[in-house]
């Protein structure tokens, strides 16, 4: 074994290039990345989907070879001796690398044997890991029957059996609820503090950057920046403000986002969070006389501000302004309940997936359904789409009772699935034509709608591109266009923006806001807290029941205490879930 020097970085990348062949095209996944990660620290590999995070992880683990450049892991050149690297590192791939038909104990045994953990130290190591991950009482359970968060922790335990010098975690927090996410970070803190493990952690969630010791910011295969998260955040000191005015928050946000001196404007509660190009507040006069009582209060910068600012510099052109959402916008009718749900219950045999859920959504409202995996969101969603009959309760969508008029109700609904249910092998034009035909559009009417979609979503230059080859942001636009072909009154969105870059997400939500303003009712299910901020009202679910409902502002306010004077949506969510868990324990 070659002795690895204990000084120097745990990981060093020098001008690493990697391209892939996708059909006839060559895709550059990594374009000359040079970076390093310090020993005993947590380095975050941060970027949206498709930035090249997984490719970089695999290169470091010796699973792929770089086209050019050099990767040194713990002082060893990976290209020369991948096995030596592999016996020193731990690697958790995106789906945790677990055998779902083996029990927790059998998974641990397998990986202990593969990593060569001596028999005599196993008992102690297992006890330690099971305690750390809270899986102690589940050793006999089949891994496939664990919750997402528990699988993630078991996957982590399997990589830690032989304490690795470098731990690679590829998007460990995708599809995991906020409570499990927090527990994972506690384990990582413990590892770096007590075991001096170096951790490389990839994520698309920008809020996780602030928990890392150092950050590598990746976008389109390029390194946009590296350094301590504070370094990124401090760049934006004095640029961020909360803006308020005596107009609707969506209107204010729209106005602010259109100003050239504004880098970013997003809705947060009842106010709009603004990032300015110059480190100074905006001139109220520039907004025009209609915006009365305009005020800006400084607020500390966030990591995301810096990412957005960097993206604006590399982005080809600023996002063009958007017109009204649907062609024939219905006149706003006040406070009419478009979706009315009373006492909705769904049983699968003895298991109650949804338990007496009631809520109503008014026309033009953006309504969020929040909850961890298994909370009953998807089941509720399926019942609302008329795909699953409820066991009990009343369900009215667009004036139709879903128990006896599911088909006409469905005609009023546009649906955009989580991973955009597009036909990857069809072109943009063919996808539009197919989806409009499915909604029974034909002839001149169909042509009009397709022209509308092309103009509205700026798909003109991409019309003949295959959907598979589109960038994520384009795919998202196309999926939304397809869902709107039949001018639905109601739009259902399933985790619409998880994994897309912040600019694409902002653009998407701007379109949604315009649709809502034109009278379209929007229902969003998500476990992604950032998306929750965009909603008018939220419903938080756990184990099939409604825990709380209200505006994002009210839910955050309820979680406010001495420790958390200004809780984030995620903190508020965890507080609600934990309060419910405590109540259940007390009751039991």
């Amino acid at each position, binding site marked *: 074994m070659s002795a690895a020097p204990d000084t120097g970085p745990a990981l060093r990348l020098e001008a690493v290039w990697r391209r892939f062949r996708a059909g006839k095209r060559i895709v550059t996944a990594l374009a000359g990345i040079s970076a390093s990660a310090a020993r005993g620290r947590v380095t975050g590999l941060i970027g949206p989907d498709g930035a090249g995070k997984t490719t970089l992880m695999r290169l470091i683990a010796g*699973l792929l070879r770089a086209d050019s450049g050099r990767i040194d892991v713990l002082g060893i050149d990976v290209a020369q001796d*991948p096995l030596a690297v592999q016996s020193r590192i731990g690697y958790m791939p995106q789906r945790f690398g677990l*055998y779902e038909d083996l029990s927790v104990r059998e998974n641990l045994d397998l990986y202990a044997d593969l990593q060569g953990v001596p028999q005599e130290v196993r008992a102690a190591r297992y006890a330690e890991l099971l305690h750390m991950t809270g899986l102690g009482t589940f050793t006999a359970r089949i891994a496939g029957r664990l919750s997402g968060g528990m699988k993630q922790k078991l996957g982590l335990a399997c990589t830690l059996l032989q304490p690795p010098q470098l731990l690679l975690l590829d998007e460990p927090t995708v599809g995991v609820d906020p409570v499990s996410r927090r527990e994972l970070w506690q384990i990582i803190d413990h590892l770096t503090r007590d075991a001096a493990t170096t951790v490389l952690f990839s994520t698309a969630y920008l809020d996780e950057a602030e928990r890392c010791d150092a950050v590598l910011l990746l976008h389109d295969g390029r390194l946009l920046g590296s350094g301590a998260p504070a370094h990124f955040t401090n760049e934006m000191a004095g640029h961020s403000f909360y803006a308020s005015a005596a107009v609707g928050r969506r209107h204010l946000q729209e106005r602010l986002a259109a100003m050239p001196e504004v880098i970013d404007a997003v809705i947060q509660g009842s106010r709009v969070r603004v990032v300015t190009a110059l480190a100074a507040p905006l001139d109220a006069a520039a907004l025009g006389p209609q915006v009365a009582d305009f005020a800006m209060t400084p607020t500390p910068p966030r990591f995301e501000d810096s990412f957005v600012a960097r993206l604006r510099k590399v982005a080809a052109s600023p996002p063009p302004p958007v017109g009204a959402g649907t062609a024939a916008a219905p006149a706003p009718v006040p406070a009419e309940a478009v979706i009315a749900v009373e006492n909705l219950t769904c049983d699968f045999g003895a298991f109650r997936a949804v338990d007496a859920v009631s809520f109503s959504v008014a026309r033009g409202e953006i309504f969020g359904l929040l909850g961890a995996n298994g909370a009953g969101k998807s089941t509720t969603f399926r019942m609302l789409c008329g795909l699953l009959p409820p066991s009990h309760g009343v369900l009215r969508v667009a004036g139709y009772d879903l128990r006896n008029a599911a088909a006409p109700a469905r005609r009023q609904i546009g649906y955009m699935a989580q991973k955009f249910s597009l036909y990857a092998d069809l072109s943009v034009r063919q996808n539009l034509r197919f989806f409009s035909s499915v909604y029974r559009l034909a002839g001149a009417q169909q042509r009009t709608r397709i022209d509308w979609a092309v103009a509205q979503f700026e798909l003109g230059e991409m019309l003949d591109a295959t959907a598979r080859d589109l960038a994520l942001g384009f795919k998202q636009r196309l999926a939304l266009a397809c869902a709107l072909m039949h001018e639905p009154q109601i739009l259902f969105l399933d985790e619409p923006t998880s994994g897309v870059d912040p600019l694409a997400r902002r653009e998407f939500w701007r379109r949604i806001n315009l649709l809502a303003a034109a009278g379209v009712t929007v229902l969003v299910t998500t476990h992604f807290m950032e998306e929750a901020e965009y909603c008018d009202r939220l419903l938080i679910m756990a184990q099939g029941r409604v825990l709380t409902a209200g505006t994002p502002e009210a839910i955050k306010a309820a979680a406010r205490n001495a420790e958390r004077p200004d809780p984030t949506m995620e903190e508020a969510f965890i507080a609600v879930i934990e309060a419910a868990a405590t109540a259940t324990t007390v009751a039991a």
Partner: protein
Amino acid sequence: MKAAFVRLRALMRKEAVQIARDPSALAIAFLLPAALLFIFGYGVSLDARNVPLAIVVERPDALTASFTSQFAHSAYLRPQPYRDIQRAERAMVANRVDGIVWLRSDFTRRALSQGGAPIGVIVNGVDANTARIVEGYVQQVWAAWIATHRLAVGRPALLPLALEPQVRFNRAVSSRDFLIPGLIAVIMTLTGALLTALVIAREWERGTMEALMVTRVRMWEILLAKLVPYFLLGMGGMAVSVAIAVFLFGVPLHGSMLVLTATSALFMLAALGMGLLISGVARNQFIAGQIAIIVAFLPAYILSGFVFDINSMPWPVRIVTHVVAARYFVAILQSVFLAGDIWSVILPNAAALALMALIFLGLARANAHKRLD
């Protein structure tokens, strides 16, 4: 070395637990062979039995009656009288009968006076196999009738008297006895190539292969850990098939168990080699299944000589059959079951199997890298 042994044992134990918990693997290994055997044993038969046959006699008399009565005694034909040829032809068009025997009105006169009376035989050529069988049977019945008639009347017969069909090896002339040994080759291809390719593709799909690769495990260990359990499973499936064939369907086993087991093991290795090779290319279960069916299962079915005779294939196809491992195994199986340990058949075919096993396993090893690209 000890560490490698520990890893190998861990991987094999994992595979065994997975097989035991996953009903689909056990179903492919044991249930599917049984189902295929039952289908071929009971359902599919290339023998003609109770073939409906129209008999048209335009002027019935004693002579025609003695001729037509011969058909009633046949186990293969089910004669049905028709009054005229038009009705009989309509019945054939409607698929109610597979053939027509037509005795014209001058049959008796010409048979007695000129010593030669034509008998019209019309068979439905749509199903060529049945047609040929019907034709043969009618000829046999005719020949038998002429022989008995000559004995009774003392007149010379017009047909050669030595029309005596001889059947060797498959003494019962039962297509079942011929098909079932060949079917065992198809069944073993199923476990060896299809199941193995599927379970490895499943590891790619679920991301467990990626996790395995970033441990100290070496590639040959991963391959060997797949080879051994599925070799045992495939041999188990073979044992079940042989037991069903011999005890349930009464297929004779003239050769020795030892030869059968040894040659099956060789074929199993070749099939597993194919499975491993496919899994190196296909990384999801759907594609792995498609490739396994196209390159392993269908050739074993069509090009192995199990149903279709290789000698009657066009020469380009005949050349292709040489790269189908099942071809050699079917030859061995048919010999071992129906004839015995015929070394002149077994040795060259076993050598071919060994060579193919070596090539496939060698290619699979050379193709397996501990990398994703």
